[in-house]
């Protein structure tokens, strides 16, 4: 028990007496943690966005009431909805009527232009068709569902299961494009953060090595008076632990500051930032703290090894 206090005292003494190398180690740890702290949520956001896009992929079945075509009576629509829901692997079927379609389209424009929208479209009434949104239970079942809605007819052309079906649209192509783009972004971010992580680990290791190298004579003396390797190593590990703790503390402080000052005000305006499935700040801080302490303590312990060979 007295030993533990001795090691802690020794580690703190070393920190006090060699302030400059310790400071360098603390700053490198802080930079590493800061990078990690920014990259982890960014990676997660990119990941979350891709999942969101994947969730939205489905089939859109447009009906034959576009332009000036007559409206389809309600029972027919209900009948088709029943048929669609009966197809295996269909998770949900949602009817979008003409008005809703117009609203959906308008949502993509600025508010002041929305009023003009209807007048600018050709025809004297709402030209948009009503439609069904179909979500598969799994993305891989999408082609099967599509085939079930428009089975191949006698002449080889697709023959829809109902007269009122005009066209079946598959959002897979654009989804694939989006997924492709986001996964490229994700890959780039992943590789970048891996590189940064490696670089910062090497940097921390190097800084620790320098501070130990400056004291290699001290280590030699300790060995010569008969100190065991662990007796020499523990104070260094305590030192590394403290460096990691302080460095991570500083970085987490900066992260918190950045979060409250920059990120939180933007959250309401940008959908991208406001994806709910990123790691909570407290968890993130805890993870970063543990990583930083483990890395710098183990870095100290391992670097010392080459000075401890008998």
């Amino acid at each position, binding site marked *: 028990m*007295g*030993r533990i206090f*001795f090691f802690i005292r020794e580690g703190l*003494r*070393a920190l006090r*007496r*060699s302030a400059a190398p310790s400071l360098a180690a603390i700053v490198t740890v802080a930079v590493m943690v800061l990078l990690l702290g920014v990259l982890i949520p960014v990676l997660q956001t990119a990941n979350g966005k891709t999942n969101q896009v994947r969730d939205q992929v489905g089939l859109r079945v447009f009906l034959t009431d576009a332009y000036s075509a007559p409206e389809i009576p309600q029972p027919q629509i209900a009948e088709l909805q029943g048929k669609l829901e009966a197809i295996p692997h269909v998770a949900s079927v949602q009817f979008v009527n003409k008005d809703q379609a117009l609203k959906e389209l308008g949502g993509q424009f600025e508010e002041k232009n929305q009023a003009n929208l209807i007048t600018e479209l050709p025809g004297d009434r709402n030209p948009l068709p009503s439609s069904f949104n179909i979500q598969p239970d799994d993305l891989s079942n999408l082609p099967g569902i599509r085939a079930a809605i428009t089975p191949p007819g006698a002449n080889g052309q697709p023959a829809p299961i109902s007269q009122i079906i005009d066209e079946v649209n598959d959002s897979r192509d654009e989804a694939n494009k989006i997924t492709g783009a986001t996964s490229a972004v994700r890959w780039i971010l992943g590789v970048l953060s891996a590189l940064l992580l490696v670089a910062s680990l090497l940097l921390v290791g190097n800084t620790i090595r320098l501070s130990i190298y400056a004291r290699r*004579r*001290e280590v*030699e*003396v*300790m*060995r*010569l*008076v*008969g*100190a*065991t390797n662990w*007796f020499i190593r523990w104070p260094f590990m305590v030192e590394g632990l403290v460096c990691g703790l302080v460095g991570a503390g500083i970085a987490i402080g900066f992260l918190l500051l950045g979060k409250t000052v920059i990120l939180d005000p933007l959250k309401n305006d940008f959908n991208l930032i406001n994806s709910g499935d990123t790691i909570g700040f407290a968890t993130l801080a805890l993870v970063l703290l543990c990583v930083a302490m483990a890395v710098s303590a183990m870095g100290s312990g391992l670097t010392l090894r080459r000075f401890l060979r*008998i």
Partner: protein
Amino acid sequence: MARRQTSEALRARPRTTRRPEHLTEQRARPPIVELRRVTKIYPGGHVGLEHVSLRVDRGEFVFLVGPTGCGKTTLIKTLIRELQPTEGEVLIAGRDIASLPDKKVPQLRRRVGTVFQDYKLLPNRTVYDNVAYALQVIGASRSEIRKKVPDALRLVGLADKVKNYPDQLSGGEQQRLSVARAFVNHPPLLLADEPTGNLDPNTSVGIMQVLYRINRTGTTVVVVTHDREMVDKMRRRVIALDSGRVVRDQAAGTSTPDDESTREFARRVREEMGLDDEDPRY
């Protein structure tokens, strides 16, 4: 004057080659140091030691002399397992330390106090903490440390510099601190590698006096030096090395009175070296 005449008369007497370990009552316990045909060849082919065989008995004061590069330091390093001999056996208190597992090496080093030419002090610790470290390493209790450290510092005359840092001490003081650290847990064997190499003659006598005092407590002392004059004046056993071989092993101890006190010893050595001003600290 009378003293000088006696010492000259003593020196004139033929030196005997009888070695103290042949005294029958000491044969029962194994010698503290025994080398059996030890050879050390460094990587690259340089020969550090060549078939060195020697014995040092408990309580002896031995000088190891020879020109630079003759293998003195190599010999000392093999005694604390900083170097492994290429061939031969190194026995400390009858145990072959070549076969000692690496884990046990710290234990060996705790039982062998070592003083280095470059002092090897811990620069960011006070005089007190430097000596205390040697005790902390062996897991000594705080009360033990509080008792033993002042004793050791008093022995070497540094009791009033407890709070200083090594860079605030003179060379002689640093070396005495190094001696205090080596001796604080009363090891049965004390090795000193060129303890006076960086010091002026007067300060050197001071260090030798401290070593002599330690030797009188029963500790075996082996001193490596190239200061032949000092060695001649101290009249102790001398082992001379040249090119890694033992070229001379003389037991000069028989020619000096064994019960010479530390003060008398220092006065005599100073006188014979032509140094008058005695350091009042001892």
